[in-house]
């Protein structure tokens, strides 16, 4: 179930849901900061995390393993009946950012809901909730997808990377760094999705042209209209000179 204690908490730094409760819930970089490692004290996310801490589990249970096998099309004994889950909540393991995380979800739970409400990974944003805006973009088995339109059970057995998984050893991903340098955000709500779209694009195409960047990011909307800076960030993150500013100066 969604953690309503967070949503309804009378005090607290952020709601964590896309609602109208008025509490800020946009992260510029979508990162969960560990107060122990950065010494900045308790971040709003880590504060929230303590309210609805999710259990990290290190090994696959027997049932979730057979479920993963079925999903991956591996050999399952012929005599076994077809696997049927739900409609009650099911225990599954999701591989998120290289870690197996145990979660109990109904089949009607989307991957985005599992990430935000069950695992407290609130970097991926719910904006349109219909796969049209890209705010919830994550990388599943190397492919950029809208987590709001994917069932959590569809992600069992797959490797999921969220915006929280980009930074390594306290160092931001080059895409994140160039977003910071080029001011690739205004309100910041679309930013985690655009960072993921940019990362997925550069994984497939390390030196995209401006046209390819526009195409690769075309599933993500920025209502503030920061596209110029985002394209520049993508160019720089792929080791290319930002050109949009120069073009505009000459215009």
């Amino acid at each position: 179930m969604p953690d309503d204690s967070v949503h309804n908490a009378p005090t607290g730094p952020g709601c964590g849901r896309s609602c109208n409760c008025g509490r800020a819930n946009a992260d510029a970089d979508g990162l969960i900061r560990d107060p122990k490692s950065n010494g900045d004290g308790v971040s709003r996310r880590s504060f929230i995390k303590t309210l609805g801490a999710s259990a990290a589990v290190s090994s696959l249970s027997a049932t979730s393993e057979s479920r993963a096998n079925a999903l991956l099309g591996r050999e399952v004994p012929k005599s076994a009946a077809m696997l049927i889950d739900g409609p009650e909540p099911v225990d599954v393991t999701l591989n998120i950012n290289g870690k197996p995380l145990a979660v109990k979800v109904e089949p009607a739970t989307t991957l985005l809901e599992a990430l935000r409400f069950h695992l407290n990974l609130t970097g991926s944003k719910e904006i349109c909730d219909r796969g049209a805006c890209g705010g919830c973009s994550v990388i599943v088995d190397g492919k950029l997808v809208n987590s709001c339109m994917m069932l959590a059970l569809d992600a069992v057995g797959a490797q999921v990377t969220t915006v929280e998984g980009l930074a390594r050893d306290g160092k931001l991903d080059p895409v994140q760094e160039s977003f910071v340098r080029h001011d690739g955000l205004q309100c910041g709500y679309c930013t985690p999705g655009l960072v993921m779209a940019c990362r997925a694009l550069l994984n497939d195409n390390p030196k995209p042209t401006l046209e390819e960047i526009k195409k690769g990011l075309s599933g993500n909307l920025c209502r503030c209209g920061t596209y110029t800076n985002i394209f520049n960030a993508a160019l720089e993150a792929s080791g290319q000179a930002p050109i949009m500013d120069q073009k505009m100066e000459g215009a």
Partner: protein
Amino acid sequence: MNPFAYVQPRTFDEAAAALAEKRFSLPMLKAGGMDVVDHLKEGLIQPDALVNIKRLRSQPDGAPIAEAGGKVRIEATATMAEIAASDVVKRLAPVLGLSVGTAASPQVRNIGTAAGNLLQRPRCWYYRHEQFDCLKKGGSTCYSIEGENKFHAIFGGGPCHIVHPSNLAPALMVCNGVVHIVGSDRKSLPIAQLFHGPDQGIRSEHVLKPGEVITHITCDAAPRSGFYAIKEKQSFDWPLVAASVSLELDGAKIRSARVCAGAVAPIPWDLPKVEEALKGVSVDDDAALRRACDVAGDGAKPMTDNAYKVRLLPVAVRRATLIAAGRKTEVDA
């Protein structure tokens, strides 16, 4: 979303059995799930089970797209991105890749499947809105007739006026596509027989019976083929009009043509008059090509807000023809 069970068949036959058996009252097939999840979120469907075929393959090699005896073979669960990137498709039937390569958004193309694209439900805003009890949902009115019908049909409409939403279907029409199915006596069905107009049943757009599952799709080689869609937005938009064309050429001269339009009718809409008019025309003779393509709008019955489609369709057909012939359109030039 209403609660539902999640069924994981290991083969397409098991999927067909899960749909046919009486264990569930309203089981639904799900592959990529884009349209199914959308329907669930809008409250348009309340299945008690989803039968997940997302990762199933009909062939043991698991290749999403393959060449088989000079034909193209596409798994039902191949994604749009896989079809668009396939070298087999680019070489043997480029129209297929072009048709899905710019559909929706990169994220959707990574999830949406070939069969899902064919069987997705229409985008009509009255159908998609829970509050409109339209003909398609068992009501007694098609709201588009007196309502807003800018994106509706100019051919074959009535009593319901949807346009078929698939980009892949018209592309397969010009390559003699065939869908292969299990869970039925019939093993395959030409794409030309897969869809039916609203006059032959309003509640669905295709002839598959409950329990019939598409496993894969095959089509003839059509190396000289092209697709062109005219849209309002370049990303995440459905075409206003679209055209798929396959040509046989003698040099620059068209020996024969197959032309099928999308987004203009409740089914992929063949344009035999254009096919006839294109015979003998040189693709490099702009005036003759325009004359031949201008008949694309003949016989159209536009509604109050969509007569513009009658003018746009010849443009899409001509540009698709140029692309099929390996020429540049005036937009690229």
